[in-house]
């Protein structure tokens, strides 16, 4: 191949999109390394502290699309202090300084300030895509900067972020010349929206395919928007409450019927069940439906709706649908691939909850199911075994029994056998979350059978260090392991320290590892950052190696301990 000019080789490489493959290509020879290096455009950084911006720029100077992830996953559940880290500003600053032609930035669990957003909007002339998931630290002022300065903005996608809503009119900041929007999602914003500005923006965005509104957008504005944008493929409804006898409502019906391209519905952040019939006309072509943020829709209305969504591939719903409702899903949605059932009442025992029955029904009716997140009241081994048999294609299987140490509800046994069946049957399983009463046995199953497992979440499980060791020795492809409230200690932690360099990260909180154990590990493995998160002021005085560590987060890194850790986070 070496007698082709570089441009030709580069053109060939363009067809190789997977980064894994591109990494392999880089290893062939120096000239291929060089060509690939300058032509790599998409970079994914799963842990922003594993590498520094300078090294990224040095390695891939042509990067156009960057994905950054910051805080550990358990930060979603308030287990990580707010100021732990994950600041994106240094990255933006470095990229701007080096005149990287950044076009796309996707961030998850990072701290994004208004300054960072402002800098993005000014430094990167061709900036097109901004996706923020579970981030925090910014306000609508930052959004205004993005709106005002990014002349070619195509995507502004805010998912589940904590945004401080100032009284500014950020929607107004999109200039009249901005007509390039393809995707706009501001559903997570809590404040008022300038409805007129929104309507005008939609009117001048002929390429708009995805629009997700916040709760502040009422039904009559929705109607006007749909009239302007019948080409929408993906719609997130804000408020959906109106008098069904009114003219506005009938106008809405007409507008919805014209939305022939609609494939995905979400939102309904405020909804009256008696308005739902308005969307019946588009149900038959929907492939994705997310009603997990729609409060107070009775199960009967949900089933009436879902019965008509025969092409559904993805369904996110609240558990008020009930086992019966899931039965309806099973009989109606034969193409279902992803199901998420969230608890509508996380701490109560309502009649609205789902049990193993619903899951079994789904498994019987939807054999294509490959991704599951299921919050339920109870589970049995028999049910899990049935599910494993019916659905061998699971890639993601996350089961959360609301009572974290609940045994099999019919036999009172641990749920080891059930989960064992899942890992044995689903050979492609990449992500697994366990719950319920579990002993070391389940980990022996996991270590033995879960060959493709990349991410494992464990809580309140196991009896001894053996449990964790089964996983560390057995799961060759494990990348992220997160453990809380399990009796795993120093032996498990220190038996195979080299393993952690093959993984992205390990989280252990409320386990039995001691400070001494963590220190030993940190000493042996200089290319790991072993962080101890300690929010307890008392500990500072009596630091004893025998003391158990409250929270430990370790990750491989090429750049040593970070300098932006707050006081109560120590890198050993």
């Amino acid at each position: 191949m070496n007698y082709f000019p570089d441009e030709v080789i580069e053109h060939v490489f363009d067809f190789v999109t997977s980064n894994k493959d591109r990494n392999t290509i880089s290893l062939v020879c120096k000239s291929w390394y060089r060509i690939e290096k300058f032509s790599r455009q998409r970079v994914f950084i799963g842990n922003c502290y594993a590498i520094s911006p300078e090294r990224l720029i040095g390695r891939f100077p042509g990067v156009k699309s960057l994905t950054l992830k910051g805080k550990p996953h358990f930060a979603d559940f308030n287990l990580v202090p707010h100021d732990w880290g994950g600041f994106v500003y240094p990255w933006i600053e470095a990229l701007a300084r080096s005149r990287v032609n950044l076009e796309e930035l996707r961030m998850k669990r990072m701290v994004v300030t208004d300054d960072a957003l402002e800098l993005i909007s000014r430094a990167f002339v061709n900036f097109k895509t901004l996706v923020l998931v579970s981030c925090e630290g910014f306000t609508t002022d930052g959004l205004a900067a993005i709106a005002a300065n990014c002349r070619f903005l195509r995507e502004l996608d805010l998912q589940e972020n904590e945004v401080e809503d100032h009284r500014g009119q950020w929607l107004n900041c999109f200039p009249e010349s901005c007509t390039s929007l393809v995707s706009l999602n501001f559903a997570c914003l809590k404040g008022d929206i300038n409805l007129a500005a929104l309507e005008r923006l939609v009117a001048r965005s002929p390429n708009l395919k995805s629009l997700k509104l916040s709760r502040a957008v009422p039904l009559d504005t929705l109607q006007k928007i749909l009239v302007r944008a019948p080409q929408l493929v993906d719609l997130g409804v804000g408020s959906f409450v109106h008098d069904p006898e009114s003219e506005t409502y009938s106008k809405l019906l007409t507008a919805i019927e014209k939305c022939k391209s609609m494939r995905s519905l979400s939102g309904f952040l405020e909804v009256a069940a008696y308005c739902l019939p308005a969307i019946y006309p588009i149900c038959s072509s929907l492939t994705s439906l997310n009603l997990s943020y729609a409060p107070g829709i009775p199960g009967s209305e949900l089933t009436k709706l879902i019965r008509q969504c025969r092409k559904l591939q993805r369904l996110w719903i609240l558990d008020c649908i009930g086992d019966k409702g899931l039965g309806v899903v099973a009989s109606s949605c034969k193409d279902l691939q992803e199901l998420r059932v969230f608890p509508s009442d996380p701490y109560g025992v309502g009649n609205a909850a789902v049990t193993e029955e619903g899951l079994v029904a789904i498994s019987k009716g939807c054999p294509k199911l490959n991704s599951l997140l299921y919050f339920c009241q109870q589970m049995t081994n028999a049910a899990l075994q049935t599910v494993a048999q019916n659905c061998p294609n699971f890639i993601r299987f996350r089961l959360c029994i609301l009572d974290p140490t609940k045994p099999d509800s019919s036999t009172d046994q641990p749920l080891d056998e059930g989960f064992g069946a899942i890992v044995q049957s689903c050979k492609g399983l990449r992500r697994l979350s366990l719950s319920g009463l579990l002993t070391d046995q389940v980990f022996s199953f996991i270590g033995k059978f879960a060959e493709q497992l990349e991410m494992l979440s464990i809580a309140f499980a196991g009896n001894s260090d053996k449990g964790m060791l089964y996983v560390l020795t057995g799961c060759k492809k494990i990348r992220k392991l997160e453990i809380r409230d399990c009796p795993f200690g120093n032996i498990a932690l220190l038996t195979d320290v080299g393993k952690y360099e093959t993984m992205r990260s390990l989280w252990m909180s409320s386990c039995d590892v001691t400070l001494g154990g963590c220190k030993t590990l940190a000493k042996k493995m200089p290319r790991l950052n072993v962080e101890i998160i300690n929010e307890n002021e008392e500990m500072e005085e009596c630091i004893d190696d025998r003391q158990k560590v409250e929270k430990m987060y370790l990750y491989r890194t090429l750049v040593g301990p970070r300098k932006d850790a707050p006081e109560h986070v120590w890198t050993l």
Partner: protein
Amino acid sequence: MSPPLLGVEEGGGNTSTVATSPSIDGDCLGLKERNYLGLSDCSSVDSSAVSSLSDENKSNLNLKATELTLGLPGSQSHEREPKLCLLNSGKLDEKPLFPLLPLKDGICSSSVQKNIASGNKRGFSDTIDGFSELKSSKYTEGNWMFHATGPSSETAQCGGQGKFPGNAGMKAMLPSRTSGAQSTMPKEALPKPAPEGPHALNGAGASQTRASNNAPAAKAQVVGWPPIRSFRKNTLATTSKDNDEVDGKPGPGALYVKVSMDGAPYLRKVDLRNYSTYQELSSSLEKMFSGFTIGQCGSNGTPGREMLNESKLRDFLHGSEYVLTYEDKDGDWMLVGDVPWEMFIDSCKRLKIMKGADAIGLVNK
């Protein structure tokens, strides 16, 4: 009798205090559970507060409930208000109202203690704690009894702990007494099931099993569990709070709305789900407020106010003296009775019994 009540009600925007004060049993149950869980802290203040509470009669617990709603820091009091009424639908009419001021200080400290011990980030879990505890507490009397006995066994075990191995929840107890540690009370309430460690864990495990069979409230105390993104949890909590006053939650959720009446020193709350027609609602309101006005006749000495009497009240909805109105989701005051009952329930945020003169605009439309 009336002065403390009036003082509370007029204390600005705290009208819900009044509404919750009759809710004794509910508060007892809810409070019982809260303090039980706070107990596993082993902090002496909490335990003494609870033991004193368990010895005392209902009135003190009731005071504690109203006391909390007087604006203690944290979201507990706020979130709990709608829930406190869950248990009272039948009892609203009968319960006399208790004076609020005595014992306030004694009880204040323990609840404030709990608030302080939980950090900001924990505030939300605490909110949900109150939420769930009350919800679950309505299920059985037995439930309440368990928790009444629970504290003593837990305390005994806690007392003997020291550095208890194997259970991070227990371990976290010690620091939590003094600092704003994040992972404190919630975790203790739910010790691991692993058969590690001595008696306390088994005992705690046993009580936890009991708890899980009867009172899921226990599990509410664990930080970060269930593993739902905090954004989703917060959004759900906000919309549920709104829904309590507007839409009922699916299933057994109650639809409590405030009912105010012109000239009344305090408001009431009714569960709209208890009725299926306007007639039922109006007769129930009639009964509710007739009792009140008879009382008012005796004690209300405010000059310039019309003295209500029974016969006038009977003309409640039928006559022109009083008119029943409601505030809908858009914030407009509407006359009750125009729309189908189901739609009314869906959009009604609060009720108001207006005097004829004020309601002229609505009545004459």
